[in-house]
């Protein structure tokens, strides 16, 4: 007995470890589905998410976000991605070039919507960054500021005072600085960020980046470029 006892202990521990790992990885909650109030679907009711997919997953009713949302790509694109992002979040920064690449590769077949989801207690500058992007948006320069913030994330996220840095970005993209500074602290920018946040919460978004494709959440592990490409191709094929 004493000869095999250590092996029994080892096997029991191995069994418990593998068993718990298997149990915990399979009990991940199913991904929710957006409701019919998705702003992208309201823009073009004819091209809503595939009915098959909506039958497969439970429908979660989301409230509308900021209106109009900032979108890249045509409203009648067969595949619509909606990203909830935080400019200070490193994984969002890593996801940014992937999404740009998808935009280039799929062109008119893909529409991308960005939603502000600043994780305020976690990220000290996230709200200021979201405000900068939204303030630029009021001058029709949302995407240039969006790109600036993500591409230079490492330059500002550890700084104490980010406002002068964001202002320099505003100058670089050719904004009216007085108006930008007014809008940064203005009611409209705050309302837009709040509306996007409310939409995110209503859809069960808990972290960033969270991406929905035609109403269904894309699992985080499918966000690397090579996987996301296949996910989009499959969605296009299903159309």
């Amino acid at each position, binding site marked *: 007995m004493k000869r095999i006892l*250590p092996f029994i*202990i*080892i096997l029991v521990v191995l069994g418990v*470890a593998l068993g718990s*790992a298997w149990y915990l990885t399979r009990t991940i909650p199913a991904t929710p589905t957006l409701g019919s109030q998705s702003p992208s679907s309201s823009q073009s009711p004819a091209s809503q998410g595939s009915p098959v997919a909506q039958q497969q997953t439970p429908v979660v009713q989301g409230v509308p976000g900021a209106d109009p949302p900032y979108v890249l790509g045509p409203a009648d694109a067969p595949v619509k991605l909606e990203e909830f992002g935080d400019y200070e*979040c490193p994984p969002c920064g890593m996801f940014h070039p992937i999404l740009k690449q998808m935009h280039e590769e799929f062109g008119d077949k893909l529409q991308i919507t960005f939603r502000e989801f600043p*994780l305020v207690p*976690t990220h000290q500058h996230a709200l200021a960054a979201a405000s900068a992007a939204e303030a630029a948006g009021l001058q029709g320069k949302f995407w240039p500021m969006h790109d600036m913030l993500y591409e230079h994330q490492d330059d500002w996220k550890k700084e104490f005072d980010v406002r002068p840095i964001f202002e320099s970005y505003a100058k670089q993209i050719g904004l009216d600085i007085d108006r930008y500074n007014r809008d940064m602290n203005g009611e409209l920018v705050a309302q837009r960020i709040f509306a996007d946040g409310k939409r995110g919460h209503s859809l069960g978004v*808990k*972290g960033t980046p969270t991406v929905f494709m035609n109403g269904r959440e894309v699992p985080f592990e499918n966000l690397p470029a090579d996987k996301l490409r296949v996910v989009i191709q499959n969605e296009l094929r299903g159309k």
Partner: protein
Amino acid sequence: MKKIYVVAALLALVGLADALYLTIEHLTGQSVRCTIISGCSAVLASQYAVIAGIPLAAIGAAAYFMVFSLAILTLFNYQWAGKVMRAMVITMFAISVWLMYLQAFVIREFCQYCLLSALITTALLVLVLISRGLRA
């Protein structure tokens, strides 16, 4: 002497649980995302968190399981196991030092479960060095 291996086995179990937790977080993407509650894990999202497609945390879990097994075998008088365990723990410590360096100077973010793992590996190193000292 035996007590040292009992403590080592228990520490390895804690390390195994820690590394398993990190593996699950890594695979499900829960902590790789930024969240309001747990903050970000730039560490798990970094290129250093994966080696040849295998999450580093999973390799860590396997290593802790090996250390646990070797500690148990040593307790049951398998002399060779103690030597293998010593070599493994020294290797794990060296890897931990490298990972701490990456977190401090390259990624410039710390991951608390990774710090716990480094702490456990350091404690294991102290234990195997004591056991060697006692034998000598």
